[in-house]
């Protein structure tokens, strides 16, 4: 594929608002996970809650879109002058020539969960202030983003569970290559809600402490929330050395089970292989892999086997979910931004909370930060329904 430029990017998660705080947290191995005090949740689990989301003010003309998920989206895309970059791109290309591709798994479902507590005792009706289209619907966050920037081109929410905001890069890449658009706002936003907290708990997949990816005693995920965005443009001939490019995307389906990965990681391996093929690279060219690494026993085992089969045991890798938590539909975009920071700063971030690496998984899993020159990195995102996506990013020079 033709490389695409990430001309601007930003991320907001429990480890920080924007790039500076995110990079600082990674440099100092700071996790944002804490025991869950979200809403009325009574589960013994840890979460990565973003501070200050409830204080965000949605512009009055977009009041119908007001919900926690869109507040988090706005908090995220107003960091690092990202909004100004989108406006500059709109002036350059035209409002209709910029696509919007946002990954989310639960969008604003929290509003519906809360509305169900306020049903009319006689009729069972939802309260009058409940707005399905602009709060609950999966498209809400993409539509909000589109309206916030006044964009009038193609827009879509990608919702393939935890691969959602990795796959946005693929959809945007094709639409740009087809010539329908000149640039794309891609990203992912997912916010804490009861469906995912009680849902993952029902599957026995939430850890009782901060999640420990690739640990021998790992016992599940810590759910996080985040918003992360990138502005994709065609790469010009001249670029600064530290410009970040999307070089490859690979996707596959497990065709195996709704909530368990293929035990040998076959689908994961196919996605990684396809990404390498699209980028024209070999496993030896990859300097760091940001693993999906959710810290469930089955995910890390399947992914670890797939990575070892393809890369051997010498490619440095880690999961940053010990810091951010598993931000579900936002994870692909958050970890794409972490990969961009890795490339620009030569910082390979350690996986946090992991004490005893799983001896069955023979990888160069980083338990401490490493600093070195980095040319190419891979990011993995896999999800329920057996959906897999791998991205490869590289420095311009």
């Amino acid at each position, binding site marked *: 594929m033709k490389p695409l430029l990430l001309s601007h990017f930003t991320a907001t998660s429990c480890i920080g608002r924007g790039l500076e705080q995110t990079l600082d947290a990674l440099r100092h191995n700071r996790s944002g996970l804490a025991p869950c005090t979200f809403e009325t949740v009574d589960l013994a689990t840890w979460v990565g809650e973003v501070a200050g989301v409830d204080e965000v003010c949605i512009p009055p003309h977009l009041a119908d879109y007001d919900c926690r998920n869109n507040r988090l989206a706005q908090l995220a895309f107003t960091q690092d002058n990202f909004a100004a970059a989108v406006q500059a791109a709109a002036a350059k290309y035209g409002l209709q020539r910029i696509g919007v591709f946002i990954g989310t798994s639960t969008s604003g479902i929290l509003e519906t969960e809360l509305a169900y507590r306020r049903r009319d005792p006689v009729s069972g009706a939802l309260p009058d202030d409940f707005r*399905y289209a602009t709060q609950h619907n999966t498209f809400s966050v993409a539509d909000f983003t589109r309206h916030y920037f006044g964009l009038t*081109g193609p827009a879509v929410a990608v919702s393939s569970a935890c691969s959602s905001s990795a796959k946005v890069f693929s959809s945007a890449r094709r639409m740009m290559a087809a010539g329908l658009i000149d640039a794309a706002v891609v990203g992912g936003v997912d916010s804490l809600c009861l469906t995912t907290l009680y849902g993952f708990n029902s599957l026995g997949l939430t850890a009782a402490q901060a999640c420990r990816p690739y640990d021998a005693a790992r016992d599940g995920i810590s759910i996080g929330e985040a918003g992360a965005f990138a502005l994709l443009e065609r790469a010009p001939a001249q670029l600064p050395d530290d410009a970040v490019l999307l070089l490859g995307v690979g996707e596959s389906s497990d065709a195996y089970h709704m909530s368990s990965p293929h035990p040998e990681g076959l689908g994961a391996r196919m996605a990684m292989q396809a990404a390498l093929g699209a980028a024209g690279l070999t496993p030896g060219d990859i300097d760091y892999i940001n693993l999906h690494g959710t810290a469930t026993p089955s995910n890390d085992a399947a992914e670890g086997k797939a990575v070892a089969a393809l890369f051997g045991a010498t490619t440095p890798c880690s999961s940053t979910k010990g810091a951010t938590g598993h931000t579900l539909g936002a994870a692909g975009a958050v970890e794409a931004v972490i990969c961009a920071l890795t490339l620009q700063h030569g910082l390979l971030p350690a996986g946090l909370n992991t004490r005893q690496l799983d001896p069955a998984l023979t990888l160069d899993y980083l338990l401490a930060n490493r600093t070195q020159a980095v040319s190419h990195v891979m990011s993995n995102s896999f999800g329920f329904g057996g959906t897999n996506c791998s991205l490869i990013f590289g420095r311009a020079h």
Partner: protein
Amino acid sequence: MNTITLTAYIDGIGLLGPGLTGWPDSRPILAGQQAYQNQTTVLPSPALLPAAERRRSGAIVKLTLATGLEAVTAANLDPTTLPCVYTASGGDGQNCHEICETLASDDRHISPTRFHNSVHNAAAGYWSIATGAMTPISVLCAYDASFGAGLLEAMTQVVVDNVPVLLIASDTTYPEPLHHARPIPDNFGIALVLSPRQSAGSLASINISLTGDAADTLDDAALEQLRRGIPAARSLPLLQALAQERNGRIVLDYFEHLRIAVAITPC
């Protein structure tokens, strides 16, 4: 307005909606040779799924598997070879209602099956499990513009990746109280196999582009009601032109001020 045109051949159609049971039976209705009668959509049991999954599969899974298989069979293709674009304006409405009801009750314990069926890509996941297809699936939602978004995504795959693609658009109903907020009247699904090359079985070629023109409406009042009421049924003007084997240009609904023009040439 954008003048880029994307071209593909339609090699197979799957259709299931109120009074529209499969493409062969729906064709004379959409061609105007037979009267349309709005009857509740009949969803077949997904025979390809293992018994346990079959029992637990909701309307959106049944609809997706039925229309997808009809289109792939009509195109005489192996589903394991086809990347897929799955678009839906919502997930499994009944399942969503049950989860919200449980979470609002004193006992918030939701079942694991309910939870994994709550993801927007559940039906897409079941498609890959049922067919064994390990090909990528793009899983999309654009509220009322979901069919248009899926069509654009599928067309860019056909043109850019130069491969045949299966597009499936499925919408199902919500029970009350969500039905009041999102009054989708019945289940409706459409699937199209889109190919970059003409084959012996190609039905028509389509050239699509973005336009500011108004979306076409349907003369039959009941069909027009369907088109307006269900996002996947926004595809009906295209299906009608295909049924009539008509050479011409139609406009499909997408967003306000941005719609999709389709120039159709029967093969």
